[in-house]
C-alpha cells in the first residue's frame, strides 16, 4: 500500500439531497462508527481532499459548483455517490429541477445505495474507494515513467 491510500481525506458536497445521507455521512465520522481512527478526515478544502462524497442528485444550479470542486481536487481522486438520489435521482427523479445522478456530470467510481444510505455502507464505499485511489496512483506513476521514455506517445490511455 502506498502512502496515498493510508489516510484519504474526504470532501463532502450535498447535491440536492434531503439531508438524510448528509447526516449519515457525518455520523460515519463521529463515535460509534468513527472512521477518523483510520485517518479519514472530513476536510472543507477541495485542494486537500482525495475522495469526493456527493449526496443527492444534480440540478441546474449546483452542476457548475460540483464541476468546480472536482476540478480543484488534485489527482489521483475518487468520487463516491452516496444514496439512491445520487445514483439515479431516486424518488425525486421525476422532479423538474433534477437532472439525474451524479454520473451525469462527474465520473463516479463507487455507488453506495440506500435511502438513506447506512453508515456501514458508506464506510464500505470509502474502503473500496481507497483501492481505486491506489490503482489510479499506480497508473499515474506508470504513465509518467512512459512519458519520460516515449514523450511522443503522450496520448497513451490507461484504464484501471
Amino acid at each position, binding site marked *: 500500500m502506498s502512502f496515498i491510500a493510508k489516510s484519504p481525506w474526504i470532501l463532502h458536497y*450535498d447535491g440536492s*439531497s434531503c439531508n*438524510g445521507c448528509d*447526516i*449519515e455521512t457525518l*455520523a460515519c465520522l463521529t463515535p460509534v462508527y468513527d472512521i477518523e481512527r483510520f485517518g479519514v478526515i472530513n476536510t472543507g478544502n477541495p485542494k486537500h481532499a482525495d475522495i469526493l462524497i456527493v449526496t443527492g442528485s444534480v*440540478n441546474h444550479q449546483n452542476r457548475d459548483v460540483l464541476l468546480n470542486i472536482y476540478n480543484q481536487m488534485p489527482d489521483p481522486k475518487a468520487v463516491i455517490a452516496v444514496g439512491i438520489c445520487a445514483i439515479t435521482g431516486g*424518488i425525486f427523479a421525476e422532479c423538474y429541477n433534477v437532472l439525474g445522478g451524479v454520473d451525469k456530470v462527474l465520473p463516479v467510481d463507487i455507488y453506495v445505495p440506500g435511502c438513506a444510505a447506512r453508515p456501514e455502507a458508506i464506510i464500505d464505499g470509502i474502503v473500496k474507494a481507497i483501492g481505486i485511489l491506489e490503482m489510479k496512483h499506480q497508473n499515474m506513476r506508470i504513465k509518467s515513467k512512459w512519458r519520460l521514455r516515449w514523450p511522443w506517445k503522450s496520448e497513451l490511455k490507461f484504464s484501471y
Partner: protein
Amino acid sequence: MGKQTIIPFGPQHPVLPEPLHLDLVLEDERIVDAIPSIGYVHRGLELLVSKKEYAEYVYVAERICGICSFMHGLGYCQAVEEIMEIQVPERALFLRTIWAELSRIHSHLMWFGLAADAFGLENLFMLSWRLRESVLDIIEETSGGRVIFGACKIGGVRRDISPETLRDMCQKLEKLKGHMDRLTGVFLNDRSVGYRLKGIGVLTREDAQRLGAVGPLLRASGVDMDMRRLGYAAYERLSFEPVTENDGDCYARCAVRARELYQSIDLIAQAVSMMPDGEVDTKVLGAPKGECFMRLEQPRGEVLYYVRADGTRYIERFRVRTPTFTNIPSMIHCLKGCDFSDVPNVILTIDPCISCIER
C-alpha cells in the same frame, strides 16, 4: 464609512453539511449586510404531488428533509386526514407523538454537535453525536429506519410498539438524561463557551415578532409560542409548558434547546404511561376533496402545510412553509453588526435546514 469588502460564504463550506450561499458585506471585521442566495438544493417536490398518488406521496413528504422527516410525513398525513375526516385510532396518535418527540431529541442533539463544531470545540461535537446515536438506536428499534422512518401513513401508523419496548425506551431515555446533564452543563456553564455565545446575534422580542421568527429562535426572545399547544396528535392530553428565555442571544437559543431536550423526554414518559390499547390504523377509502391548512411544531419551529384536493387520486396543490425559510430574515438581521468570526455561530443558532428551505 470605511471600505467595504464582499466575502462569499459557501455553497461548499466546512460549517454546515448543506450548501448555503451568503455574500457577506464587511466593513473591516464588522458585517454590515448579508445577502443570501438559495437554490442549490431545490428539487421541486411540490409539483411531484401531481405525479404520485395521495397515499404514496407520504414517502415524498418524509423526504422534504431528512432530519425532521417524521414530522413532515405527519403533517401531510394530518392534513389529508382532516380533509377526508378520518378518525385516527388513539394508540396511533400516541405513537405519533412518541416518534415526533424522539426526532426532536435527535435533531436537538445534532444541533448541539454542529454548534460546538462552529465555535471550535470538536470534542463536544463528538460527545453530542455519540449521545444522538443512542436515540437513533431507539428509533431504529421501533420504526426500522435511522433517519427516514417511514412509520406514518394516512389513517394511522405502519407499526406498533410493544409494551416491553416502550418500557425499555423509557429506561434508556432516563439513562440518556444523566449523560445529557454533562453535555448541557458544558454549553450552559462553561466560561469559554459563554464568551462565544453571550451577547452575540441579539434578536429582541419586537424584532422577532416583526420578522416572523418561529420556534426556538422566537422562544429565546421571550415569546411564548409553541404549536404543540394546538393539541394535534396526543398533545392535548399531555401537560407541558413552552420553554422561553428572555435574552434573545445565541446563549438563550442554546438554553431553550437544552431545556427542550428534557421536556421531550418528559413528554415521551407521559405518553408511554397514558398509552391506550387498540388498533394502530384505520382503512382509508375514497379520495380527498377539499382544502386544509395544518400547523405543526418541528424541532426548528412552526411548519405550515396547505393541501388542496379535487376528489381524484392525485392532490391538486401541496405547499409547505418550513421554519428555516421563515427564520432567514431574522438570521440576516442578527448577522448585521456582528464580527466576521461570529458568523458560523449566528447562522447555526437558527438551526438552518437548507433542504427544508428549498424543498
